[in-house]
């Protein structure tokens, strides 16, 4: 499979196979923004067996945005490319605080009440296994639930 190198932009490599579309969803990229976008799925990887890759031309994502993809793609590596050259390489790291991405599983949590102008907020309590906790009601959310909520397959 041939995917040409990008000139300027962001390459997200080593995404677990099948999760590239979920990565884009977390980044808020729908495809209608006009960026040139390459999505490579289920290709061979030495490290992962199979992996996905996402290349976005003309978009530089900051660390804070990228860290959110660690929720479903903890193995992901990110290359920032300028003029065909990788100018920065980074690994994603689970963010300490998460707001707005996940919703709380507890139906009597204040964040689940539709009439209240409140955003769900979670704090990281464990990296391995991945565990977040609702700031408001204390309910824990595990990796499987996170992946399920974000629309990837566990």
């Amino acid at each position, binding site marked *: 499979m041939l995917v040409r190198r990008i000139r300027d932009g962001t390459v997200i490599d080593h995404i677990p196979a099948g999760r590239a579309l979920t990565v884009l969803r977390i980044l808020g990229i729908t495809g209608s923004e006009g960026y040139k976008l390459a999505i490579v799925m289920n290709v061979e990887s030495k490290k992962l067996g199979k992996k996905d890759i996402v290349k976005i031309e003309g978009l530089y994502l900051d660390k804070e945005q990228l860290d959110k993809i660690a929720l479903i793609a903890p193995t992901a590596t990110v290359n920032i490319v300028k003029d065909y050259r990788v100018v920065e390489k980074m690994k994603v790291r689970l963010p300490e605080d998460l707001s707005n991405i996940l919703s709380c599983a*507890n139906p*009597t949590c204040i964040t689940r009440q539709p*009439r*209240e*102008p*409140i955003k769900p907020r979670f704090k990281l309590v464990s990296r391995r296994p991945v565990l977040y*906790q609702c700031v*408001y*009601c*204390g309910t824990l959310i595990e990796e499987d639930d996170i992946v399920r909520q974000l629309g990837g397959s566990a």
Partner: protein
Amino acid sequence: MARWLGRDVVSILDFTRDELLDLFEAASGLEGVLESGRARRLLEGKIVSLAFFEPSTRTRLSFEAAAKRLGAETIGFTAAEATSIAKGENLADTVRMLDGYSDLIVIRHRYEGAALYAAEIAEKPVINAGDGRQHHPTQAMLDLYTVNRLYGTVDGLVYGVLGDLRYGRAATSFLLALTRFKPKMVYLISPPLLRPREEVYMALRQQGLPFQETESLEEVLPELDVLYVTRIQRERFPDLRDYEKVRGSYRVTLDLLQRHAKPELKVLHPLPRVDEIDYRVDGSPYQAYFLQARLGVPVRAALLAKILGAW
């Protein structure tokens, strides 16, 4: 040094051991003077909001008594009145209104996180008087104050916490409060369906509380210095069939205490009770729950006075 002025009270874990001891000292100092009327200038001119979205008698009245003993006025509503408010506006707007009318807001609500949410919205201090199954910090404060009063310490004792450890916020807050002290052992006594939620276990482990679980009160009763009994929180069961399975699954009787307990054992209960403590225990030397209930007033008065800068 404790920073009390204007602070919110959302969870008992917001407080250090020293802060709790500091509060106990204030409560003890107030105990003598509240009823004499000599404390009535402390909160003169202040208004305390009592926003009880969920039914409560004891907690609401003890906050009201505490505020009035200190000379403050109270405004607010009961659960029945809150129902009609709820039809009209959301919690955020109600909190903003009370924030504009008063100097401090005491809130009880059926949703977990409601007090933290209110504290984020309000500029004035907010005290959590119970949010769903989650926290009831002022209950834990008065519970430990009672233990401290009875034994002269909270440390070094063997505790049994009996009943609904899953949905009961008083039991949960009591356990979390104990993590601030050095109990010798804490027995969690409950049927499997009523064991603590995972996040509570996590907090107890993280804080290094020495605890063991058992289903049998009889087995551990001889060791206990304090037995904390709670009612099963029927209203918080997601599935009432589970409630039916555990209903009436434990009961503290005078006979049981006389056969197995140390003579100096003290029985606490946040009240109200249903049938988990036999009425015959009331007249026995084991009973400490009426004292506990009474001490709610000086502890809450101390808290109000400290937060509003009067003590």
